[in-house]
Each structure stands twice: as structure tokens, then as C-alpha cells.
């Protein structure tokens, strides 16, 4: 295998040029949701040079954080995904986080706190209970037509987000 290296600080012109991003964005159809949050480092400071990629059945999205570490995206509300033995995973979004200082990207998932099947998700159940809440996007209470969620990505320290290491496929 080829080892990973950091994305460094100078990726924007290549990875985030509007015309290029749009051309790999996929179809991403369906009921829209809006997710906002911050990428936060071990000092509690926003990470201003992170790239977040979002992958789900409906499509692919790539965004960067702003000077305060904030990000936001709209995507299709995900549906349930098959797991082993005819069971199902709860709706989720798969995320990869890249940044200067990250020697390898981090994989995580966004689940939805207001989705009933989240409690029974087989992947979430493998996460230590005290840390599961770091993977839950909170529904913001306003009555907007597009559901609004908040999800912070804490790279290090208090409330550190759960990051995954994927092993072999489900047999």
C-alpha cells in the first residue's frame, strides 16, 4: 500500500476550485437537509484549513472550513443502509477530514439525534456509549422548511469526535 501524507495548506486551488468541485459533485437528489458546524483543534480553536468530504449513496460533496473553522453543506437526507444478515444501519453521512497536521485523513460519520433508528445502529453500538453523542447531529429548533442540524468535529481533547478505522468487510 502507498502511505498517506498530509494534504498540507495549499490544496484550495486544486481541490476546491468551484468548477472542478461541481463537476464531481454527483446528483445528490432528494429531500434536503442543512448541516453546519466547526472543526476544532486541541486548544479549542477553529481549524481554518480543513477539507471535509461527504459521501453517501446520493452523492459526493467536498467543502473547506472558513477562517473560524466553520463549515456548512446541504445534502439529501440519507436513508437506511443494509448491514449483515438482513439488518439495517441507521441513516448516516460518511465523512473524511483532511488538514495540515493530519498525517492521514480521519473517517467519521454523522448520525441524526432525532432519527429513531439511530439507537439501534450496529456501527454506533460498537462505539463506547459515553462517546456516541459525538456522532449525533443536533436538530436546531427553528421551524425552517429545510431541516437544520449542528455537528462539530473535535479533532482532539474534551468531546473528541469518534474516528473510525475500517477493518475487513462484514463476512
Amino acid at each position, binding site marked *: 500500500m502507498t*502511505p498517506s501524507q498530509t494534504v498540507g495548506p495549499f490544496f484550495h486551488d486544486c481541490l476546491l476550485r468551484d468548477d472542478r468541485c461541481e463537476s*464531481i459533485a454527483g446528483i445528490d437528489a432528494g429531500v434536503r437537509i442543512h448541516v453546519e458546524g466547526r472543526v476544532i483543534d486541541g486548544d479549542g480553536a477553529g481549524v481554518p484549513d480543513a477539507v471535509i468530504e461527504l459521501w453517501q449513496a446520493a452523492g459526493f460533496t467536498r467543502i473547506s472550513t472558513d477562517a473560524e473553522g466553520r463549515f456548512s453543506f446541504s445534502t439529501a437526507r440519507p436513508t437506511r443502509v443494509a448491514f449483515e444478515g438482513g439488518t439495517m444501519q441507521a441513516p448516516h453521512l460518511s465523512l473524511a477530514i483532511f488538514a495540515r*497536521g493530519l*498525517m492521514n485523513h480521519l473517517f467519521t460519520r454523522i448520525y441524526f439525534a432525532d432519527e429513531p433508528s439511530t439507537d439501534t445502529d450496529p456501527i454506533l453500538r460498537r462505539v463506547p456509549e459515553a*462517546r456516541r453523542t459525538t456522532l449525533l447531529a443536533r436538530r436546531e429548533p427553528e421551524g425552517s422548511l429545510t431541516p437544520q442540524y449542528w455537528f462539530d468535529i473535535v*479533532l482532539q481533547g474534551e468531546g*473528541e469526535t469518534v474516528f*473510525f*478505522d475500517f477493518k475487513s468487510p462484514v463476512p
Partner: protein
Amino acid sequence: MIITVGEIVRGDAAVFPPYLYEAYRSTIRRAPRLPLVEVPLTASELTRPRLEVGHVTAEDADLTRNADTGGEALGQRIIVTGRVMDEDGLPVPGALLEVWQANAAGRYIHKRDDWPGPLDPNFLGIGRCLTNAGGEYRFLTVRPGAYPWANHENAWRPAHIHFSVLAPSWSQRLVTQMYFPDDPLLALDPIFNAVPEGARSRLIAAYAHDVTEPLWALGWRWDIVLAGPGATAFEAREQSAA
């Protein structure tokens, strides 16, 4: 006691760098400190979304001309080519490769790169291409220069080209850097040396005289091996199980 190298690694610890590598200062406040949670790959990671890569042109892979100024980038013209494979050695066709690099003088066009190296108006330093049916890619560019950075006193990055590989399977996602052999800066570079010693050579291209074109450009070959199993293997197994 100061921990200089962390124990948290994603993937094979003999190949992939640890998140915390204190000699590379930016890792200190960004590396996770809690263990990664091991989970099985599921359809979410192995199934390709409806990814539509549109408008990739031959010009995108020619960094010497794709600034579209009508002029050609300055520097030693090089061809960088190779194969993208999965862990079983099978080619990965249709992978999107995106590359970015400093110009021949070691300067990025990026607005945050402000060291006094000259910019080249005919060089953007960005390119992309799709792998063909054999998993092969090919870029025409100029050899990048080394550039200084603020990590430590008199720090210089060895010449490198950043590669992003977007393969059909999410679990195969890779961002890395390609280096050149016999670069004296490699031994001094904490980003390169964060990779376990036995795997560092995998990041170094090989001079390939059969790729070199007479009176035109020097050839370099660099293969990329992604973590397996690939989406193709997953689909084959799904079909055989059905």
C-alpha cells in the same frame, strides 16, 4: 516524558504514519488522542455513490499549459506516470487523480504562500486526470522546486507533488505526496519521515528512461497502491452470494 511519536494510526501501522508526530508541529494540536474505533466495512464504505466526474479534459493533465495563457511553464519538463492498483495488484480504472505542486522555483500560487520565490504566470500547479482501463495515469508538468516552511529553523520541504486519489470505494480514499530520489532534503523532512522507515521508499518515484521522450521531457514512474478490498471485489462477492 514527552511523547514524540503517537500510537494512533489508521490502517497498517507498518505503512501509515501516526497522527501524532511531534517533529511535524501541526500534528500536536490536531492529532486525535483517543483510540480509533475499529468497525467493519459496510455497504456505505464499499458502494460507489452516483459520482459523476465531468469535463475532465486532456488539457487538465498538462500542467505546463493548463494555465491557459498561451505560454508554457518554466522549468524542467517531466512526465509523471504510473498505475493505480488495489492491494491484490488489480488495476483501479476510473479513479480521479488530482495533483497540486509548487512551480520550478518552489513557489505555490496559493495566496498563503508568501515567501519571496518567483511566481510563474504560466503555471497554476494544478492538474487532474482519470485512470484508464488499466489503472494508468499520466501527467506532463515541470519538476517542482523545494520550498521553505515555518516548522523549524531553516526548514525546507523536499520537492514533491501532492496526489489525491478518489477511487470507487470510499475506504480506498488516499491523499499523499510523491517525492524524487536522491533529494538531500528527504532525510530532514518530518512529513516524509513520519512514515515508517520500511514504507518511505513507496513515496519516491523512479526515473524511467522508457518514459523519457527525446528532445522533450524526462520520465518518472510512480505506482499507487490503495487499501483493499476494492469495490470491484465487493460487488463480485455480493453477486456470488446472491
